């Protein structure tokens, strides 16, 4: 199966740019968080909050500039991704601001008010988004940096080992005077670029040159190398950085991209076997993994006579019920520390917006992932396909790992909910991720250039309905 036969060309029909749809959706994406902001103020003080106008204008400005840039530089891009990201980011800001109003979790020792900082990070994120759209005219350029990406990703992943652990996990790089950085968030994008470039080149070799064993296609030893390397890296992250989430994310990402590239189910089986073996192996001796699993199995168990963070989050969800207490009227601050604003931000959503609100948020993420996968389907080049599915897959896995951890589907891991949770690295990296997806979708949906008059081009272009 060659590259060319899979490429779908839409043909000469002019596809609508859908930019006006995007603008209309963006209006909702700005208005909903502004209403939420007003809601918090009314619930807390009985009056509209003073910062509402500034917040509304700020969010409108970010969304407006982003929209204009998309209109100019990626006119055929997917119309929903920007509004979805804006809405999630906007709601995240409201939730963080709402939690800032709780004095017990906004002490100076805990870093004080987080919303203003998060607003700046969001602006930086949008700036990076614009930068990517502006300077990355064609995503295929990234293919040139395949091996550089690998080195950068490895450095980013290994670096936190040399910095002190924070909040129980070694996932931070502390730069004195600037703050701390969560390199895994950026590594997620860069490693997807590496995988996409690497697999595009190697996929035929991986797919075809395999031995059949018990009905399964097993890879050759020399093709096995990179897979085992990634597997070892994931385990190392798990062991040395005590970061279950990142490790799961990278391995899952690799398995997904490998599967898409080779179309071999046996790779999925092989990958899952490896990860299961690794997870069981590590869990049998790493105490922090065991305690996480213990906490997951008995979320309400008391620890030293006290209610654990996990239990507080579960109580927050339960107390929210179907419709929630209303924004600003819940008690997710009981979780304590900065956790309600970061890892456990969904607990606030669940308690204050109820099951309906939480399901809506999860569906927003689902929709964003769906748009990403659709972009992968629509992409015309294999690198674009692989990169798009890699980024969407990473996003999906992250959403599942965080939301699943907080709600108790899987043991809790320390990762942040994209766009929603407090954290600069996360919001900046995810805006970049959305920008790359928009760039790929713009390329995919852009009308095919008029067929060149050369007979050479005629021969190589195959049109499939």
């Amino acid at each position, binding site marked *: 199966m060659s590259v060319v036969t899979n490429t779908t060309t839409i043909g000469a029909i002019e596809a609508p740019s859908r930019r006006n749809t995007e603008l209309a959706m963006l209006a909702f994406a700005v208005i909903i968080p502004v209403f939420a902001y007003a809601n918090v103020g009314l619930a807390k003080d009985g009056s509209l909050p003073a910062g509402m106008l500034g917040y509304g204008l700020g969010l409108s400005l970010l969304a407006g500039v982003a929209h204009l840039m998309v209109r100019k530089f990626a006119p055929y891009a997917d119309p929903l991704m920007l509004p979805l990201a804006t809405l999630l980011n906007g709601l995240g800001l409201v939730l963080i601001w709402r939690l800032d109003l709780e004095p017990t979790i906004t002490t100076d020792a805990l870093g004080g008010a987080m919303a203003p900082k998060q607003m700046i990070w969001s602006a930086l994120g949008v700036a990076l988004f614009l930068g990517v759209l502006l300077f990355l005219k064609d995503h295929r350029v990234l293919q040139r940096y395949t091996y550089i990406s690998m080195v950068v990703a490895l450095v980013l992943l290994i670096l936190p080992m040399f910095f002190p652990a924070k909040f129980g996990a070694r996932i931070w790089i502390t730069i004195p005077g600037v703050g701390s950085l969560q390199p895994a968030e950026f590594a997620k994008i860069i490693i997807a670029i590496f995988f996409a470039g690497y697999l595009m080149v190697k996929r035929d070799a991986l797919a075809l040159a395999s031995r059949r064993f018990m009905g399964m296609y097993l890879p050759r030893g020399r093709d096995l190398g990179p897979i085992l390397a990634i597997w070892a890296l994931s385990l190392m992250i798990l062991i040395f950085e005590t970061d279950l989430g990142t490790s799961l994310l990278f391995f899952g990402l690799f398995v997904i991209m490998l599967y898409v*590239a080779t179309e071999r189910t046996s790779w999925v089986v092989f990958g899952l076997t490896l990860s299961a073996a690794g997870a069981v192996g590590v869990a049998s001796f790493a105490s922090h993994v065991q305690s996480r699993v213990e906490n997951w199995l008995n979320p309400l168990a008391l620890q030293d006579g006290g209610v654990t963070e996990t239990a507080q989050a579960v109580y927050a969800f*339960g107390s929210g019920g179907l419709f929630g207490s209303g924004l600003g009227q819940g*008690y997710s601050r009981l979780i304590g520390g900065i956790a309600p604003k970061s890892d456990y931000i969904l607990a606030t959503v669940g308690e204050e917006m109820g099951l309906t609100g939480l*399901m809506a948020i999860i569906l927003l993420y689902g929709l964003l992932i769906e748009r990403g996968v659709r972009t992968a389907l629509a992409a015309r080049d294999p690198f674009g*396909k692989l990169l798009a599915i890699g980024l969407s897959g990473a996003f999906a896995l992250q959403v599942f790992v965080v939301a699943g951890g907080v709600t108790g589907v899987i043991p809790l891991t320390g990762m942040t909910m994209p766009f929603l949770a407090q954290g600069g690295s996360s919001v900046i990296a995810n805006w970049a991720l959305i920008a790359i997806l928009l760039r790929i979708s713009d390329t995919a949906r852009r009308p095919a250039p008029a067929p060149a008059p050369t007979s050479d081009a005629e021969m190589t272009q195959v049109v499939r309905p």
Partner: protein
Amino acid sequence: MNKPLRRVAIFCGLLILALLVRVNWVQYVKADELAKDPNNRRVLIDRYAHKRGDIIVDGKAITGSKESRSGDFKFQRTYKDGAMWAPVTGFTSQRMGSNQIESIEDDILTGTDDRLFFDRTLSMFTGDKKQGGHVVTTLNGAAQRAAYKGLGSRKGAVAAIDPKTGAILALASTPSYDPSKVAGNTDEDVKNWQKYEKDPDKPTTNRALRETYPPGSTFKVVTAAAALEHGLYDDVDAKTESPLPWRLPLSTKNLVNDGNHPCENASLRVALQWSCNTVFGKIGADLDNDKMLETAEKFGFNEQQFVPVRSNASVFSKDMDKAQTALSSIGQFNTAATPLQMAMVTAAIANDGRLMKPYMIDRLTDPNLDVLERTSPEEMSTPLSPENAQKLQEMMETVVNEGTGTKAKIPNVTVGGKTGTAQHGVDNSEKPYAWFISYAKTEQGSPVAVAVVVEDDNANREDISGGGLAAPIAKDVMQAVLDREK
């Protein structure tokens, strides 16, 4: 590559589906259980998030609510005349829990009772703050004040009952404590509580319900009732077979009287008038343990009372020999009674032999004072026939008119009573308790029966006598009730 892409899309969909199923499980299926889990602090926060319903006496609230100074609980309890009403209300504290009415009627007061469901639903729509219902008590503010003031700085307790219904009119205990000082969630509240708990005078003990004292001579009315009921004597003015001195059966000891009174072969009336130990001791020995026990238990002895606050069981022992029965029959030996129990004895006699079940909650209401539940008076037993009850009343009225209880006399009102000075401690080494039980009677029957006990470390031994210390308090309480009746 599109086939695996579609499969990955389905996989991502399954991840989202798993999340949706899980949040439905947590927030819908398990929601109620989690929301009510005792470790979920929201339960407590919600409990104190709105004003608690009040406990009401004479149409006025004796409790209130104010905003807490610190912490995440919004409202805390306040009490008006907290120390005076503490034996009635009990306390409710954000840190130390609650007791008595505050605990028993907690569902009504916090508004979580099922009967308040409609109010809760309504306030959900009107946007009003949730409110608790109220507890309307049977107590009489003036009687309570008279009892509390009368006890003053002395240790003691008063219980007053309406004999016709069993409604409790006064329930005082001193020294008392101010439940306002322990209502909050601060360390100061804890410190106050510890101070109260460590106090050797036990201010948090509800003496009227929970302390049993040897009833001393006041128990002789029970013995007299037993004598009449079991037919030992019929005529209260006929001579009894009571030698003086009288030796305790199977013993080398004589039972002595307190002072030189005409107790030899004295009639029941004279014996009660002068509180003759020899006469009533011998009645006890003659009737024997079983018959005494039967009458005592009809009056409520050996049984806890729930008014609805629990009152300790008063004691009249089983399986005693004749000498022990004789001593028990004059309120010594093992015999012990709560002030409430002695008020019940008095009330049964004043109500012509019918003992009404004592209660102190008249009705439970919703926040708008509409009645949810009303307590109706209930007969508990009939320890005496009406004739015998009237005979006993005559005897008790003689005590007040001509005997040891003259200090309880109220002009133009029939008052019957009995004094008691109960010895206790090894060889009577400790200061005795002064008792007085009495009732007042008008043409409409008896509106009040009262029992007073004073344990006073500071008084001279001679001063401690029911007639001297306790009778004036009983008189004031009865007077307060009579004034209200008019």
